[in-house]
């Protein structure tokens, strides 16, 4: 489902997109006023309701026996859920610290073993781990940079300016949400084979360098986050379009850029289907493809290596998530409810 979360994301947004664009695309007049100010007002209030949680319905006076029992009844399933969420990560740690013969023996191991370094060495012998990690990093970072630049530029234009053809162009953008990934796989492959990009990382970066979801999302964000007075003032000071973009818009929407950036990075890092097809040279692939190759060749023989590779591939994402967890979860939820 590698490129699919990305797609799901797109099409998921598209559901809301139709509605939202109808509401918040005022031609002029009072309706526009109202929706714009409402949007501005909605942002901080949503934020505050997010952080200051309502007291639970059933929390009565003091801590009674009944309320304590309810607390346990509530937290026990939640803790079980947490354990289930975390367990596969723990399992990856266990498996990557055991030798294959230990893994294949019965009963299954539940505690970490001592063969991690050995597995690590075998892994580095089996695949060019750092080479493919570098490729993944290169692709994910370049795509993230380009997406942030192109999407925020386009979003700024759609959010704050009027120009001939704006309506149809934005409508087209919404339609592009719906184009399913498989439809473009073959032609994209043929096209890239013609221009010689197949096998290189360029094949992954260029098609992903700007996307409809990011533009739509940033536009919604910018519409309410950038005060028009600020833009008017900067215009009176003689700032041209690029200066307005760089000095007025970008500083204000930094949290939005962080969300889009983290999301884009993770999506690219995890992308699998297209890289599997486009990277035809097995010695020059991204980490996900290398991992799949490793699973294909060693999956039935040396499980310790495969699991060590899987574990190492998870770590960069966990770091990115640890940095941006609050941002991701908060903004994701906001976006989903607004529709």
């Amino acid at each position: 489902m590698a490129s699919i979360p990305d797609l799901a994301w797109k099409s998921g947004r598209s559901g809301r997109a139709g509605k939202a664009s109808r509401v918040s695309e005022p031609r002029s007049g009072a309706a526009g006023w109202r929706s714009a100010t409402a949007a501005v007002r909605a942002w901080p209030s949503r934020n505050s309701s997010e952080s200051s949680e309502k007291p639970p319905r059933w929390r009565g006076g003091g801590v009674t026996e009944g309320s304590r029992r309810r607390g346990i009844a509530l937290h026990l399933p939640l803790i079980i859920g947490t354990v289930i969420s975390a367990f596969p990560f723990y399992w990856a740690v266990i498996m990557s610290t055991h030798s294959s013969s230990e893994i294949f023996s019965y009963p299954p191991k539940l505690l970490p073993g001592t063969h991690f370094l050995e597995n690590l060495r075998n892994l580095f012998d089996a695949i060019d781990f750092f080479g493919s990690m570098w490729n993944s990093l290169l692709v994910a970072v370049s795509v993230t940079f380009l997406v942030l630049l192109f999407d925020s530029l386009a979003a700024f234009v759609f959010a704050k300016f009027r120009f001939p053809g704006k309506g149809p162009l934005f409508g087209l953008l919404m339609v592009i949400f719906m184009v399913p990934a498989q439809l473009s796989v073959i032609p994209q492959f043929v096209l890239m084979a013609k221009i010689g990009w197949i096998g290189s990382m360029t094949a992954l970066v260029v098609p992903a360098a700007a996307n409809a979801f990011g533009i739509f999302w940033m536009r919604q964000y910018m519409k309410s986050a950038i005060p028009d007075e600020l833009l008017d003032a900067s215009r009176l000071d003689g700032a041209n379009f690029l200066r307005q973009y760089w000095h007025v818009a970008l500083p204000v929407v930094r949290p939005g850029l962080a969300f889009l950036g983290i999301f884009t990075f993770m999506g690219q890092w995890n992308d699998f289907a297209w890289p599997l097809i486009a990277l035809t040279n097995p010695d020059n692939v991204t980490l996900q493809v290398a991992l799949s190759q490793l699973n294909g060749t060693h999956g039935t023989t040396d499980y310790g290596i495969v699991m060590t590779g899987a574990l190492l591939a998870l770590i960069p994402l966990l770091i990115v998530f640890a940095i941006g967890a609050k941002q991701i979860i908060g903004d994701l939820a906001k976006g989903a409810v607004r529709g």
Partner: protein
Amino acid sequence: MATALEKPPVVLSDAPAPAGPRKGWREYWHLYAAISPFYLIFLGFGLFPVGFSLYLSFHRWDGLGSMEWAGLSQYQYLLSDSDFWNSIGNTLIIWALATFPMIFLSMVTAVMLNSAVRLKGLYRVAYFLPNVTSVVAIAIVFGSIFSTNFGLVNAVLEGVGLDQVAWLNTPWGIKITIAALMTWQWTGYNAIIFLAGLQTIPSDLYEAARMDGAGPIQTFFRITLPLLRPTLLFVLVVSTVTGLQSFSEPQVLLQTSSNDSTFAGGPGHSGQTMVLYFFQQTFDNNDFGYGAAVAWGIFLVVVLFSIINWRLVQRRGED
């Protein structure tokens, strides 16, 4: 506020407005330039591909030789292709096995999270974690948890005196394993979305219900569920679109147990989803024309199924 600015941006520029019909273009060129990267990329990798894949689906082509006009024959073959129908069946079964438990579990989780005072932030991070992991890596991990010989699931089954199951070698075992992986990955994500939906429900509604003597179950079905319907719709449609296009999970889980193609979806093709079948036809059989027809077939199934789901949830809302 918006209206104040929704006027030409360069009104105050010192250049006198040039006359003539080309004025618009000159005045706005920088705006068009700013949005052009997206549209250029779209032209090359969006519009052209869709048009070309339509064109391809009416031809026979192996990707190298010359194209041959095939008329509607690719689509005729698609309709009678039992492998394609098999992949539709697999996809829908896996989707149902994953989606219904997932929606139920994520809604229950969200309601519990909404009531929990302490640790809410921690729970949210923990539940979101499965969604940020690489599908390839986690499919490998699930493959080992569900492994026939040394997997944890079978060890537990044996521990409680049940028979072992060849999870990745039997038609239902394969589907359940893939569905388990998807459920694990998306339950927390959807719980957080449901939680956000729950937080928009005004608390005085609950107050009123309590004053009227409604129990928690009644409250859930009379207040929570109806007001959560838009969120449910969102979750269902996203799950449909992603679930029906699953690729990485079955590909990684089943590539070693498939003997004819890495896209075959395991023994008897019983884990071959529609998108896997598309990749097999296109890149293993080099049948680009038929692959394009399959892609359009998938598109149609996804659109139809999304509409059906949408209608079902909507109609229930009108009752």
